[in-house]
């Protein structure tokens, strides 16, 4: 991040730190990639918001405040406790208020219309609505202002439901408090100035980290929208963890087919630059203008995007799918010659026009979305407006001795078992290590739903308390496969709960059941035991305290024990250290909100797709990848990223360059000191990184820095208004 502080000095000043409306400057036209076609949906539309912005600024600038106050009954939620008419009467007396009205539901169409009418007929130019929490309807009312032709930020919201009527029973005190809050809101509204959302020119390009099913899905989706895509895969092959599967539930498609289709889509699309054997080392910047530093291993392959959109000859690339390994060039599977592989070179040169993506570092400013790189050093620099993190998961690796894993050769993971089963010839008895397999025990929840005190913490330092979700169905699927192909082989399932949660999953349970699999239910605190048998027909004995047999101990002789290993969070390397992406207690990446912003990470512009977020099956990974793709498009489609305008700004004349603000700012890069032509250093805010917390305002000795929309002056006027209401106000 440190480099960004220097950016203004470099003469390249892509971010406009001041509000365009106030300065009267047009925000800089974003740099768009040179597009040969006009397929981009946003092309030609980008200037429109700026024109509107200029108009609005003219409307709102320097007028006498004419304030409209609107009190909501919220049905009876507010009016049952508060005499809203009295509040309106009081409000009408306040200076600047030209209209004070009540409505049964301000958020209803008639309520909204009342505001719009006042704006049109009475020339109301500041609006206060006293209603529910601003979380609920602030945006609604800002929209009313915008549609009525005035700046949406000339609006103030007073919460008299959660903060008054719902929390105070005494009608008189409640009324007084509501009146006081309205008074304060009116005081603030009088001083509001028009604001414009922060607009950041956005690169029309997305970097997707991870070439598993989620990354491939997101890449295909995004490229089709016209954005440039760079897909970065750590391994030499595409397909990720899905490649360890044979068939995918619930429709039994071959994993090979699904991965091949997804990957071919990516290979065919020349908007996509593909780097295999490549990891993200560092990320700088912010939404709309990220710079990623990638490091490519010598064996890695790059397929560059082609601005002329000449389709790649996918067949000519010679890529292929290797079962249980993935989809990649021949060189990727040739372990004997790591590195200097002719095939990869051929593939890269056959498929790509080298010039497009590979500008040498330090050259001309690269066009947006076009990666700049120095391939000789293995370092590639890519600019992107948004990043999709699709780094996937790792299978849980049982520590040596857990259920005999690593000690008894008969104990394998489900991943191993799937591969083994797929390699068994049809008919007869399957063999493992040249011994016939007559009975197999499947232990569920290995590495998942661990119990404190029973399981030892793994390398992460904590136990995996979460359910990995997919292993139940995957295990049942394998049992069905086993019993279908080898009906005489006994199958035992030792489970805690069968969580066959998805469409078509339960059918696997039923089929396994009806195929004669025997189910035994253990309790989390008493996991099954796996032991070598002496002098018995079967080499291994599995036993558990079986809840389905009234807590009796049940044992069975088996030839194989299959551990249904769960998912663990993958290390996201340089991404994590650069972006400080928060993880949940389980170690998986955590979205901002599971319902409201399900594929967004707390760093704006960084989206999450697939099982790096939580255990997901292939279907869910693809769904979240498509969602992330749409979110990325939504951010970048206009060529600008819009952010809320409530950020700090510096009055240059007042700033004496103390630099306290820089020291205090908790957001790296949000404020920096800049050399001005007069030799003075002054603070400059980067609105893209500023969160509007106000820490800088508090420490500025000259009061040169203030928050848009929440100025110190506004706070003071609100406090004055609250105190002016006299008497005790219920708190």
């Amino acid at each position: 991040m440190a480099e960004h502080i220097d950016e203004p000095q470099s003469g390249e000043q892509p971010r406009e730190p001041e509000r365009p409306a106030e300065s009267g400057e047009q925000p800089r036209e974003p740099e768009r990639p040179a597009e040969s076609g006009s397929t981009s949906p946003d092309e030609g539309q980008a200037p429109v918001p700026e024109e509107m912005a200029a108009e609005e600024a003219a409307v709102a600038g320097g007028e006498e405040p004419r304030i409209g106050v609107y009190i909501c009954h919220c049905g009876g939620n507010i009016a049952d406790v508060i005499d809203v008419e009295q509040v309106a009467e009081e409000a009408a007396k306040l200076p600047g208020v030209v209209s004070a009205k009540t409505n049964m539901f301000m958020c209803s169409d008639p309520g909204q219309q009342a505001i719009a009418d006042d704006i049109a007929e009475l020339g109301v130019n500041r609006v206060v609505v006293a209603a529910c929490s601003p979380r609920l309807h602030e945006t609604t009312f800002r929209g009313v202002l915008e549609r009525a032709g005035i700046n949406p930020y000339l609006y103030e919201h007073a919460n008299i439901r959660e903060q008054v009527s719902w929390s105070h029973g005494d009608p008189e005190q409640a009324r007084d408090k509501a009146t006081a809050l309205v008074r304060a809101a009116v005081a603030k509204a009088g001083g509001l100035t028009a604001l414009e959302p922060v607009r950041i020119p956005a690169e029309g390009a997305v970097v997707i980290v991870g070439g598993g099913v989620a990354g491939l899905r997101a890449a295909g989706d995004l490229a089709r929208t016209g954005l440039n895509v760079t897909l970065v895969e750590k391994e030499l092959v595409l397909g990720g963890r899905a490649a360890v599967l044979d068939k995918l539930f619930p429709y039994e498609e071959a994993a090979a087919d699904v991965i091949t289709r997804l990957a071919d889509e990516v290979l065919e699309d020349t908007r996509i630059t593909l780097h295999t054997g490549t990891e993200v080392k560092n990320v700088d910047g912010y939404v709309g203008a990220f710079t990623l530093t990638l490091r490519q291993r010598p064996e890695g392959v790059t397929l560059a995007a082609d601005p002329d959109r000449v389709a790649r000859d996918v067949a000519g690339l010679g890529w292929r799918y290797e079962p249980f390994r993935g989809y990649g060039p021949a060189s990727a599977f040739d372990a004997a010659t790591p590195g200097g592989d002719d095939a990869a070179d051929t593939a890269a040169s056959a498929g790509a026009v080298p010039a497009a993506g590979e500008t040498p570092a330090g050259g001309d400013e690269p066009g947006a979305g076009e990666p700049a790189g120095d391939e000789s050093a293995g370092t590639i620099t890519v600019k992107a407006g948004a990043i999709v993190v699709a780094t996937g998961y790792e299978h849980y690796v049982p520590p040596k001795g857990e259920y005999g894993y690593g000690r008894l050769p008969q104990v394998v993971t489900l991943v191993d078992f799937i591969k083994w089963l797929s390699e068994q010839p049809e008919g007869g008895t399957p063999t493992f290590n040249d011994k016939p397999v007559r009975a197999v025990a499947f232990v569920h929840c290995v590495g998942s739903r661990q119990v404190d005190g029973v399981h030892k913490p793994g390398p992460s330092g904590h136990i995996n308390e979460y359910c990995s979700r997919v292993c139940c169905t995957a295990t049942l699927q394998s049992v069905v496969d086993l019993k279908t192909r080898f009906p005489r082989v006994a199958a035992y399932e030792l489970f805690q709960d069968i969580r066959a949660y998805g469409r078509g999953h339960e059918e696997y349970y039923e089929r396994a059941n009806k195929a004669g699999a025997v189910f035994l239910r253990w309790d989390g605190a008493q996991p099954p035991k796996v032991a070598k048998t002496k002098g018995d027909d079967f080499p291994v004995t599995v036993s558990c305290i079986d809840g389905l047999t009234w807590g009796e101990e049940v044992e069975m002789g088996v030839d194989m024990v299959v551990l249904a290993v769960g998912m663990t969070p993958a290390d996201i390397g340089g991404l994590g250290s650069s972006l400080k992406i928060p993880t949940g207690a389980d170690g998986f990446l955590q979205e901002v909100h599971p319902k409201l912003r399900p594929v967004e990470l707390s760093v704006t512009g960084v989206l999450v797709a697939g099982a790096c977020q939580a255990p997901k099956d292939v279907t869910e990974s693809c769904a979240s990848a498509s969602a992330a793709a749409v979110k990325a498009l939504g951010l970048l489609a206009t060529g600008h990223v819009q952010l809320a305008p409530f950020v700090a700004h510096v009055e240059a004349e007042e700033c004496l360059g103390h630099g306290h603000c820089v020291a205090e700012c908790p957001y790296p890069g949000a404020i920096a000191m800049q050399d001005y032509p007069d030799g003075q250093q002054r603070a400059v805010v980067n609105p893209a990184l500023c969160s509007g917390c106000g820490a800088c305002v508090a420490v500025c000795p000259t009061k040169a820095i203030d928050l848009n929309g929440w100025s110190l002056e506004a706070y003071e006027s609100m406090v004055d208004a609250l105190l002016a209401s006299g008497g005790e106000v219920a708190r």
Partner: protein
Amino acid sequence: MAIRVDPTLLDDMERYGAPDIKACFNCGNCTAVCPLSEGDDAFPRRMIRHVQLGQRDALAASKEVWMCYYCGECSETCPREAAPGELMAAARRFAIGRFDPTTLARRMFTSTAFNIGWMVVLFAILVGFLLGTSDVLPEGRVNTASLLEWIPFHVIHDMGLAVIIILGVLAVVALVNMLWLLSRETSAQGAPQPPATPSRFPLKAALLALGDMVGEVIRHRRFRDCQTAESRSDGPLPLRRRFVHLNIMFGFLGLALATVLDYLFKEPGSYVPLYYPIRLLGTIAGIALMYGATVAMIQRARKPERAYFDRSTVSDWALLIFLWIIGATGFVLEIAEYVTMSGISVDIVFLVHVGLAMELLLLLPFTKFAHIIYRPVALWYFAFRARRMGVIPNNMGFAEPQKESAA
């Protein structure tokens, strides 16, 4: 000791007549709705678990197998349509097969072809044996006396004795088998045990248990509970399964008693009037048997919407058909005593009657009919166990404390 899983019993039970049981996913609804499963009894679920884990001995030795009267509530409630009620019936067949040392029962239950074939062959042998003892046909008026001239009484008598001796030996062996298994399994399960074996046989408890058992058998009280617990009914009393079963049971017992009394007090072939007490007993018992068997067969054939009529095995049908034909032929012979009848048809009826009656007895340990022995003995055994532990069997529910679950 840990239970060792044997996954092959699930497949075996299919052949015993429970083809749907693999669908069971151990939810326990069957036990929850069962009107007879109380306290720690957990049938049919416990039986199903025995089957899933392959606990053959535990399954055969379960008292629950003999506590169930198949009201069908479980099968109708089962969310997986695994037909747990059918499993209980199959478990009874399995138990009968397990106690029989000759493996004949197992073969008959698990193979329709063997079952029917063996019954036909045995009948042919019996009839052939009877015919071989005489080369004359009865002439003129056909009545018992003349028929007994044709097939000499002593032949029938000796054959009957032989059949009863064979039956007795088989029954004793099977019962020893059963009781040995019961005692071994009930102690193996780790359930609370009666006091250490006293020096003297606990006769009092045994007699009290006998009373418990006889009371239950005569009144079919559990059968009644089984029925009344249903919110529905099978129609008027004469059509209800308990009533029908009581008719069949008392009809058979009445006829058996009349036969024994006849043997003891009546000159073979002599004429007695209809009101002669033994003849009267036989007639009334025969009517009851015929009524019960007829209604039972009609119900099985028409399959009213009840789980217990859903599936009828060869052994279900064979028992009813045997009883019905023996009853019907008996009535023809009785009528022939009082009404002039003639011709070869009565001879054939006579042959069939005697042949089937002997076959029924011979096959008793190997067919569904065996429940007439096993059910009372099992009920007695568990009542005896309960009595020895000082538990008074309540309605034969035997609130026997089960082993605390290990969890």
